[in-house]
């Protein structure tokens, strides 16, 4: 299953906190598509997810400048 989460309006620490809580609800193999802003969230969310043992499938720029989509597999 693929789920989505928009954290473009969030700030530290809720960017990764919300991602982590959302990932916690998923089953192994599910994918979470996280929409986030460049800067701190873009630098830290994929890195933190990978460090926690999740698989970062892709990081792609969204249609709006400064916004990115990050696919994370549990």
């Amino acid at each position, binding site marked *: 299953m693929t789920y989505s989460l928009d954290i473009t*309006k*969030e*700030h*530290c*620490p*809720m960017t*990764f*906190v*919300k*991602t*982590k*809580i959302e990932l*916690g609800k998923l089953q192994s193999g599910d994918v979470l598509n996280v929409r986030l802003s460049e800067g701190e969230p873009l630098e830290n969310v994929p890195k*933190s997810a990978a*460090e*926690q*043992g999740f698989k970062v499938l892709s990081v792609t720029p969204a249609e709006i400048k400064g916004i990115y989509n990050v696919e994370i597999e549990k």
Partner: protein
Amino acid sequence: MSEEKQSKKLSIIAFSGDFDKLTAVFTLATGAAAVGYEVNLFFTFWGLDAIKIKQGRSPVGKGFLPKVFGIFMGGLKAAPVSRLNFLGASPKIFRYMMRKKNVATLEELVSAAKALKVNFYACEMAMHILGLQKSDFIPEVKDVLGVATFLNLSEGGQTLFI
């Protein structure tokens, strides 16, 4: 999750019952828990206000003086700002500004801390002085501890006093 990550630990002594300092406590706690730290929050003295079930001003506590303290101190919703409190107007203004700027409010941080399984502990000695019991606190409070147990829990990690 790697072995190294699992062994990371942050313990915070939450001494202050101030809105801004509690915001710092819960920001650090949720941020650390989200990146895989074991997080222990040890609430003592004014910090105990943050974990009361009754979040407003209420005569919580056994005995006359504890009840008076309970009314004056209140719970999480009554937490004052450490500077420029303006008789309680500032926390309301802060909450408004935080919501407006999409920064997590203290209440959101507390519920995130619960969701991330942050460990909440209460100080036995301070509870005794203030006439408080474990049943006065939110159910997430795992245990009532003394210094020795806290030192054991925090051993091998980072400890902060806020």
